[in-house]
Every structure is written in structure tokens, then in C-alpha cells.
């Protein structure tokens, strides 16, 4: 038999699979957060591997803020059909009634109502005792310290000072009634791992990650894609067609595009690798307020 040396991606994948199975075996009502981006795509892929040939034995939850890129929604529905997973979408209906949007109410209030509150509503409604997310430890400083199985009290609050020691792979999955666990199978992956894994495993991701001519307007240095007619144009503002792509996906009015020619997966990996120091460094020394804010808006609620 040929000597197979486990690469780090094999090791990361196996570790994540083990975490998924631990959730399925230990909790009554798990749910997986599905936000349609690259990390969610990897999460979905690993989840399918963990339970094959069974289907994923818990639902996937998407909190729809109503301002996601149209392509994201189409991609989400196609994935659900293709892989036959149980998709739950939730929108804060009170927010819809009040027509909460990022233009009139500001991004912070909009994010709070349509994302954070909406997520709590969905988790309470489903009475989920474990919520699986795609967050990674290399993303953010507080995440660097969070456990793989991260305990939440009945109010969904994290107590960082009182985390359970997490030794070996012996995850303490015990919770009291009303409490829940957030679980992060991709904790030990880096952004580069995510991209190389997507490449190696040929995982489908929304094409918004690839450069293409798209209609954008420039606002305080940020390129915003005009994804539908709801984006109010300032006087004299006309969308320009530019070659752009997105590093992260979220609500289109709050997601900045970058100008890029990288139209294939290897090209964006190379492009990202060339600039990866600045992305990561931004997180490391916390100098880039805007960047971390954006990150928060993209993914912060989890």
C-alpha cells in the first residue's frame, strides 16, 4: 500500500467531520446556519461528507434580511434542491412591516433588527439546542479564543470569562434546559484553507466571488453593486460597469466590491494570497476599523 501522508486539509476535514457527528449524536434539535458564502459552502460540503450516505440530519437555517444579493437567494434554493437538505428561511416580519432598510435606518439598526434579532427569533422558534456556524478562529480576535463547542445561556449570551476547558477532542456537549451550544466545525481553518479546499474539492460557490462586469456606484470609496432598483441613487449618480468581485457576501447595499480581473478560482486565490497579509494584518492589530466593522456586518451576528 502506498504511504499516504495526511495533508493538513485532510486533517482539518476529518476534524470537522468529527465535530459534525458529535453534534448529531449529542443534541436533540441541531440546526446549521447557512449564509450562502464560501465558508457556508465548505460547511455544507463537510456536513454532507460527515453523514453520507444519509442526508444531513438537521435543517439548515438562512436568516434572510431581504437585501441579500439576488444571486445568493437563487444559489441557496438551487443548493437545497440539489442536495435535498431541509432549508428553513427566516425573515423578521416585524422589520418587514416597518420597512426596515439600510438606507433609511442606518446599517447598524438595520443589521440589528434584520440579522441579530431575526436570528434570535429563528433560534427561539425552532427551540434549537445546537447551532452550527462557519466562523473561524483566524477571523477575529475574540473568535481566536472561542471554543469549538461554545456554550450559550438561555438568552443566547456568551460568557467568555467562563468558558469550559476543551481538552483533546472531548467536547462537553451537556447543557441545561433552555441553554444552547454554538458549534464551529471550521474553527481551525484559515481563509486560505477555505479557498484551497474549495479548489481541491471543486465546491460550487456563488459567482459573485469572481470578477465580472457589474453595475456599481462608488460611495465614500466603496463600490456598491446596484443589485436591484431598491438602491436609491444620489442625484447625478449613474451606475458604472466595472470588473469587480466580492470577498465576502452579505446584504448588497452593505457589501463593498473590489476591482479585480480575477475571473477564475485559481486567479482569486492567487490574488487573495498576494494581498493576504493586509487582510489578515487588519485583523491582527485591529487598526482597520472599517474592515472589522464590515466583517461584523457580514458575519458578526454569529
Amino acid at each position, binding site marked *: *500500500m502506498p504511504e*499516504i501522508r*495526511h*495533508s*493538513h486539509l*485532510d486533517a*482539518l*476535514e476529518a476534524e470537522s*467531520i*468529527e465535530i459534525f*457527528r*458529535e453534534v*448529531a*449524536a449529542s443534541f436533540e434539535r441541531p440546526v446549521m446556519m447557512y449564509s450562502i458564502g464560501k465558508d457556508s459552502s465548505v460547511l455544507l460540503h463537510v456536513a454532507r*461528507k460527515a*453523514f*453520507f*450516505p*444519509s442526508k444531513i440530519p438537521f435543517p439548515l437555517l438562512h436568516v434572510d434580511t431581504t437585501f441579500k444579493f439576488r*444571486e445568493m437567494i*437563487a*444559489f441557496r434554493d438551487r443548493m437545497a434542491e440539489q442536495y435535498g437538505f431541509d432549508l428553513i428561511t427566516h425573515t423578521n416580519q416585524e422589520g418587514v412591516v416597518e420597512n426596515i432598510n439600510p438606507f433609511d435606518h442606518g446599517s447598524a439598526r438595520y443589521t440589528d433588527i434584520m440579522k441579530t434579532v431575526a436570528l434570535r427569533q429563528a433560534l427561539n422558534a425552532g427551540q434549537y439546542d445546537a447551532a452550527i456556524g462557519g466562523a473561524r478562529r*483566524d477571523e477575529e*480576535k*475574540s473568535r*481566536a*479564543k472561542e471554543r469549538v463547542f461554545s456554550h450559550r445561556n438561555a438568552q443566547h449570551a456568551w460568557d*467568555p*470569562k467562563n468558558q469550559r*476547558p*476543551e*481538552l*483533546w*477532542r*472531548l467536547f*462537553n456537549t*451537556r*447543557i*441545561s434546559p433552555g441553554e444552547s451550544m454554538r458549534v464551529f466545525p471550521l474553527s*481551525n481553518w*484559515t481563509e486560505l484553507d477555505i479557498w*484551497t479546499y474549495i*479548489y481541491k474539492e471543486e465546491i*460550487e*460557490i*456563488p*459567482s459573485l466571488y469572481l470578477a465580472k462586469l457589474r453595475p456599481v456606484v462608488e460611495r465614500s470609496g466603496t463600490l456598491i453593486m446596484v443589485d436591484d432598483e431598491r438602491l436609491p441613487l444620489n442625484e447625478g449618480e449613474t451606475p458604472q460597469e466595472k470588473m469587480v468581485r466580492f470577498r465576502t457576501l452579505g446584504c448588497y447595499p452593505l457589501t463593498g466590491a473590489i476591482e479585480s480581473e480575477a475571473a*477564475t*478560482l*485559481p*486567479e482569486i*486565490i*492567487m490574488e487573495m494570497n498576494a494581498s493576504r*497579509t*493586509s487582510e489578515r*494584518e487588519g485583523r*491582527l*492589530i*485591529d*487598526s482597520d476599523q472599517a474592515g472589522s466593522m464590515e466583517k461584523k456586518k457580514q458575519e458578526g451576528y454569529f
Partner: protein
Amino acid sequence: MSITQQAPQLDIEQWLSAQTDKSILRFLTCGSVDDGKSTLIGRLLYDSQLILDDQLASLQKESHNRTTGDEGIDFSLLVDGLTAEREQGITIDVAYRFFTTEKRKFIVADTPGHEQYTRNMATGASNADLAIVLIDARKGVLTQTKRHSFILSLIGVKHVVAVVNKIDLVDYDKAVFDKIDAEYREFAAQLGFKSLVTVPISALRGDNIVSKSTQMDWYNGPQLVPYLEEIDVAEDRVEQPFRFPVQWVNRASLDFRGFSGTVASGQIKPDDDVLIAASRKPAKIKRIVTMDGDLNAARAGDAVTLVLDREVDISRGDVLSAPGETPEFSNQFQARLIWMHENPAMAGRSYLIKIGSQMVPATITKIKQKTNVNTLEQNPAKCLELNEVGTVTIATDKPIAFDAYAENPLTGGFILIDRLSNATLGAGTIEFGLRRAQNLTYQDFDVNRQVRADMKGQTPRIVWFTGLSGSGKSTIANLLEKRITAEGKHTYILDGDNVRHGLNKDLGFTDEDRVENIRRVAEVAKLMADAGLIVLVSFISPFKNERRLAREVAGDIQFIEAYVNTPLEVCAQRDPKGLYARAKAGEIKNFTGLDSPFEAPEQADITLNAAENDPVDLANELYDLLFEGHQYSAL
């Protein structure tokens, strides 16, 4: 619309292939607080080019404001940026950092240096293949250096790099390095590391980090980063006996039943024989299923789903193993335990143990000794406080499969969990099994009360509640039983409802019948205690003589008389079953307190005033009396 894979250019593909093929090294940094850990991590991030020029420039500017002088850059500023954030509340925890070199990917567990956070250092060590122990050249080997090194050996980190940092501050003096090198090696010799190198470095100036320092011609050992890139830490798990803890049973369809898990050690291929540790039933591997297709072999570290050739009863927690090399299967073992909680570890307490995918109630049966982590001396101990390490024996409620930790960390390491708060209390490493359950022959020992009690991890007792009807006996007994049961102990309540309707239904309420009633209950309580149970008897039992009889029947079984003292008026007013009303109406004769006497105990072991206190508090008071180390006379 979505991405379709396109043929990439060759160099990109090669680069990606190099990325995906890199191996991974998980290490932790530890040592005393001021030994330069932050600076070293900053230096590693810097040298693996995770810091940009513009950021470096501002770093240089900032560094000049500090005390590093001339061309020096204060790399600790990188990590100190985090420290400020940490000070707002999460100072104490392990942080994970990531960096990559041409040859390898690294996950660093950056562990806190303070003594009070030893548990977090242990957490970081538990998933590390290697440890960098920092030693300040000016200070030499400190207590904390020793403490951390001991924890490393306990957790089973096999490879250690002791870096003697700040060597520039002692003028790159060979004698200083040699002295520390000798001292540390002498201490570490007791700890059984597989590899140990000592490297003189200056994290600040980059000496011996990536390339050989020009300042230390006398040093011919390895440089830090090249050493980390090259060291082979692969434990030969593949060569070890096959262990497969079943994590999840995969029932994809009526025709498919597979067992999902990660191979802990060894390897397996179709047609290989396996044995199920608990049931000792054999089977053959039929298929090794993954989404990428069936495999012709699975090895340590692979997360797979095994299909067997026959129907066998297997569930989560079972361990599949090689037939000739099975794990121990027993309910008692000796282990080393690191305690991680403010509430100390005590013998006799019941916890949950998680080992592999098995989780069962377990009791610390004995704390044999604790280790002074500074001197490695063993001292006698009654309990283990936070951050203390000791040798204990543990009994589980049912047999579990395990190996010695030294032989197999994945099947020999465990955690203890609090049954009420669910907190993780401690982490242990099994030394050896105390009783080989699979070899037991029944002639070997007498099954007696002690054996039955040990299996339940408890001391059998009889708690005898006496008091008027409606005084609150059953309420308190029920609350007490709930609490005891939640801790995994085995109890039974004997009261009027379950005895009068069955065993004693031939008895009335005359004085003679009352005596016989109590005699029978006392005998049943004794049998149950002999079976190992904690028995709660809730009977009015109004006569002193009967209660003394019950105590005598119990013999050498601990007997606790609990007098629930509630004034008659209060009981009559509560009248939960409407009995007082009926008695007063003349429907019930010989009613205790009305037309039949209640002889209050004069020397009850505990008197509970249930008129003025919350029954929960009384149950807790009684619990404390029972389990917090009080002694009782048998008679």
C-alpha cells in the same frame, strides 16, 4: 450562476497543490509571564511575512517610543494589541494563531503564563504535538518553567523546544546558555519527552529564529523555524492496535446501517476482523464508506463510516478493536487528574465521565496523592483544588473501554463533568485498569454489600423521616431524592403510599399493626441498603420504640433519623390529604396527634423545622449532613 472549475495555469496549480499538501504542526508556547512569549509570536508572524511594510513602519515608529533602542522593533506590540482587548475580560484564555511557511502550516496555541491559569495551559497542550518552553536567559529555569513542563508531560506532549530567550541581554554568553541547558535537561529527564532541544535565541533581534545567528559562533544546534518545519512529530498511530470509537450510527436506509467515527489508532481494511469491546462480539469489515467512494483502507485520523458483514448490536460509545489487541473493559481504573474548577475534587462525589464517545456516571473512589508541580514530590491528599494534579482511582457506573493514556491518548484521556451545572471540572489520563472485568470469574470474590455499593459508587444509608401527618416528610424526601439522583446515586423512597397499598395492606392502624408496619418497613429498608441503595423512609412512625427497632434492624448500615418537626396546628391547617378534617369528624380513629400520641424524638440526628423553612433548604441541609463528611454512629 456559479463558478465552474476551469483549467488553471500550471504554476497556479502547482502552487495550490503545494498548499494542499503541506503538513500541519500544532504547538503551544508556554513559560513564565515575562519570558518574551508575545515577542516570539510577533517575531514568528513577522518572519513568515504576515506583517506588511506599512504596518512595519508604524511598528518601528511605535517601537522607538518604547525602550527597545536603535534598530529594534518591539514585536510584542503586535500581540499586545490583543492584550488591551483581552484586559476587558478574556485575558485568561488560550488564543489560537495561524501562520504558514514554505514547508508547513502552524497552529499556535498561545497559552497564558500566570500560575492561576494552568488549566488553560493544559487545554492548549492537549491538542499540541510540540511545545516551545520559553526561558529568560537572565532568570534561568523558574518554578513556572517547571510547572509548565510537568503539565506538558502529564498531557503527553512528546516534543519540547526550550528556547533560551533574550540571549542578547547576557551578551550571547555561552556559559549562561550551557548552565540553563544543563539545568533544564536535568529536570526534564524525569518527564519522558521524546525529543528535547534547547536553542539560544533573541526573539527581539531574530537571532537563531530563521537563520543562524552571527553572534553565537559557539552554537551549532538547529534554528527555531527550520526545526519546527522539519521535526517529525507523527506518532505512529497507524502501527498501534486498531481502535474505532463509534460516534454516530448511520441509518441511511432500511438496507444501510453503518458506524461513523474517526479511527483513533491502527488501520482497517475490508474483510478484517473486529471485536466489539463491550459485547465481545466479533464481526468483519464489509465496506469503508465515504462520500468520495469506498476506501480500501482507513487509517488513524480518517473519519469514515464502517459497514459490518453481520447484524450486531452497536451504538454510540462502543469501541471496535482488533480481536487480539482489545482495549481494557472495566469499571475501575487509576488515573492522573488535573482539576480545573473552583469546587475541589472529592472522593465519593459522582460526576459524568466522557472518554472517547462514551459518557457514563463515575465516582472518584479515592484520592491517593497529589503532586507538588514544583518539586514533583507526591504528597497525601484529601481533595484536589483548582489547578492541582493528583493520582486518583475512579469507578464508573458501567464498564467502559479504555487504554492507558501512554499507549493511546485518544482512548485514555477523559474529562469529568458536573452533573448539575454541566461544567467541565477536570481532565484525566488513565494509568491502568484496576479490575479486568472481562477476566472476572464469579468464584474470585464474594458479592457483598460493599461490592454492590462500590458498583454504584455510593455508601448505602437509611434516612428515616419521622413526623406528623402533613409535616412535610415526603416533600423533603422527594427533594432530597431528586438531588441525590441527579448526581448519579441510586435511591429509593419507602412511604405509606407504596408500602401500605402492597406489602402492608393487611395491616390497620391499631398499635400492634403500627408496630408490625414499622418492623416490615425497617426490614425492607435494610434489604435495600444491603443491595447498595440509599433508602429514604418516610413514615409517621410515632413511637420511640419502633424507631429504635428500625435502627437496630439496620445493624451496621448508617442510619440517620430525621425529625420533621412541624407543630400540630400547622399540619392540621395544611391537611394536604384532608385526613385531619376526617379524623376530627370522627371518620378516622387512632389518628396520630389527635387521638393517638406522637412521641417526639429526643436525640434525632437532625431536626428539620418545616413550619418556618423552605423544604428545599431543609433538603439541602440534610444533603450536607449526609454527604459533607459527617460521621454517624451505627447504633
